[in-house]
């Protein structure tokens, strides 16, 4: 049983990271209708920025707050410079642009910080809460708490603030929003910055566990995309649940199913997700799109 609980806890820990990046993807989708393939690389880049601030002598919490703020600004900049010119083009064009962004960020990070993994300073104290024979590390609790906090903040933002309402309006219908006086361009810009910072949180909190290198978020992105789709592309709550689910199921499958082993463990959550999507094509908590005639 110890093994079981440890697998679940480890699954929640890594799943929280998938969920944070998935949240970033959902925010961009929900506020702009865009799918950002570079979300993971942006998160990785932010983690390097935090690393750099720390290396310059700032405390880790200060470094990560500064990195998140920097990312917010960078995210808005990227949207203005790179994505704005194509935002009315076809979906695929935009996806390919984010792919270009992906390649560029990866290459620049490697150029600046090298490809050798770096130890990212621990954010939470070492040690664990012992419950019976199962130890839950403070880091695992911390990451999970951060995820809940971010999800909560996001929920509040969307439900109770003007900018959140504007974002939802823009996602729902750009033209109408413009007519009722929403500054669409600004909303998209802020949405992008927000998503970038949320991804940054994911990247920074992943870094101590995964070790920092330019490829840290590569596979995480795939899991995050899967989580976002599984949860429903427009549902932050869905993204959180799906991210955690994938983390846990993947671990349990790898840990218990002999034939699957660790080799094919990535396949298990994907199969479950696809199975689910076949019956609920809009994702777990996504809104159903009814074609109008």
């Amino acid at each position, binding site marked *: 049983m110890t093994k079981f609980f440890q697998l679940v806890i480890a699954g929640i820990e890594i799943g929280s990271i998938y969920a944070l990046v998935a949240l970033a993807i959902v925010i961009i989708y929900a506020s702009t209708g865009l799918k950002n393939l570079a979300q993971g690389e942006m998160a990785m880049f932010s983690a390097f920025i935090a690393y750099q601030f720390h290396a310059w002598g700032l405390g880790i919490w200060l470094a990560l707050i500064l990195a998140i703020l920097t990312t917010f600004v960078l995210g808005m900049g990227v949207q203005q410079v790179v994505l704005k010119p194509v935002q009315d083009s076809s979906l695929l064009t935009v996806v390919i642009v984010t792919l270009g962004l992906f390649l560029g960020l990866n290459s620049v990070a490697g150029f600046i910080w090298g490809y050798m993994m770096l130890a990212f300073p621990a954010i939470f104290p070492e040690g664990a809460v012992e419950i019976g024979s199962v*130890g839950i590390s403070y880091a695992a609790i911390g990451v999970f708490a951060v995820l809940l906090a971010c999800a909560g903040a996001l929920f509040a933002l969307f439900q109770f603030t003007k900018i959140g309402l504007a974002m939802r309006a823009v996602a729902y219908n750009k033209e109408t929003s413009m007519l009722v006086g929403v500054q669409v361009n600004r909303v998209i810009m802020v949405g992008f910055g927000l998503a970038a910072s949320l991804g940054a949180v994911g990247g920074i909190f992943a870094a101590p566990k995964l070790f920092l*290198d330019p490829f840290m978020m590569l596979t995480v992105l795939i899991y995050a995309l899967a989580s976002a789709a599984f949860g429903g592309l427009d549902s932050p709550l869905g993204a959180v649940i799906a991210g955690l689910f994938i983390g846990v199921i993947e*671990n349990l499958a790898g840990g218990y199913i002999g034939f699957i082993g660790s080799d094919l463990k990535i396949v298990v959550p994907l199969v479950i997700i696809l199975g689910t999507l076949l019956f609920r094509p809009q994702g777990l908590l996504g809104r159903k799109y009814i074609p109008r005639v």
Partner: protein
Amino acid sequence: MRKTTTRRFGAAALALSLVAAACGGDDEADAPAPAPAEEPAEAPAEEPAAETGPGGYVWDGTTDPGITDDTMLIGSSGPLSGPASAYSPITQGVGVCADYINGEFGGVTMLDGKTRQIEVEILDDGYSPEQTVENIRRLHEQVGVFATVNVLGTPTNTAIVDIVEDNEVPNILVATGATRWGRDFASGDYAYTMGWQPAYQTEGKIYAAYIADNFPGSTVAILQQNDDYGDDYVSGFEMGIEGTDIEIIAIETYASGDPDVSQQMISLADSGADIFFNVTTPKYAAQAMVSIGSLDWDPIQFLNSVSNSTGTVLIPAAEGGGAVEGVYTAKWAADPTDPALADDPAMIEYRDMWAKYSDLNTDDAFAFFAWNSCMAQKEIFNNIYPTRDSLLATVGNMDEINIEVPLVYAENVSTSISTGDGWPLEAMQVEQYNGGVWEKQGAVVDVDF
């Protein structure tokens, strides 16, 4: 930037000289061999009149493509981009090595007495085999290299091995520990591709022997990368424990690219094995050690040499709360981050030279790999006539020349294909990590094939 420019300039110069060679090369070859006249002073006096190099190679005075009277052009391909980029210092190191040899010694002085500047063309394959195929063809056919050096990776080298054979361009000191390179090179099945580092299988056997001797009756749990590299280690280990009372009770695998290995480590811990054999690349090695630090499992750890760098693996792992004290490994070369070697003259020279000729991080195990390979390249190229056959004869009979690579544990780098020894390095030293230093355990183990 600088490197690319010079290299491109070099390539242009080479193209010109190739044209020149194409126009006038034959005459030169037919001419009554001017080379003997300028026979170098350093040639041993007892050398017979016919010019004979290592391996009984007899030079007929010709020069192979890629070599002029004052230059030698070599190439390399490796992952400068993509998920395997961590290895890029090995590939880049070929260029650094050339700058170093050119800068410090004016180039390589071959057995024909001429000193030649080394020019290098390095190409990125992103660890994708078809890109390696394209690169190697470009190097052979377009760039016209004399040989390739340190081409990195098992699948990538497997993809090009036939092309190398067909084009008859030596591919020496390949940066992969697959067993086949030494075997096929010695047997002549693939006479143009030759390895460098000890085979992963050999290393697996060394751990098995060490465990059987020192921890009899123990059970082993293994974490391995699910590819040829992991399989080679594990199969070597399995061969080594055959007939002993050592038992493997759990094996978990991961794929390169996986975010982390917590699940595998939890499963292995659950087996409760006495020994943990860590067959992983640096990032996962560190993650595994961190996992052990947080799990209720305290095995004796064996860490493969791929990831035994103090500076880039053990220290980061320790900072992340990993269990690193008492870890065993086997090394075929010293560790540049070993504090005990801080004042070692050979290590100082490495650091000085690499800092002088590159911006590579000298703590990086792969940069150091490139340096050791460079030491061998220097001696190899100093001991050939300017032909590919001569190069092959030399690298196949390195027992005849004295190649000193001070920081590798093998007493000398040796091959002797006539006796079936196609592996340059086969000696390893088992060491244990204590208090931030690697301590030697027993003597250097030389595995004979």
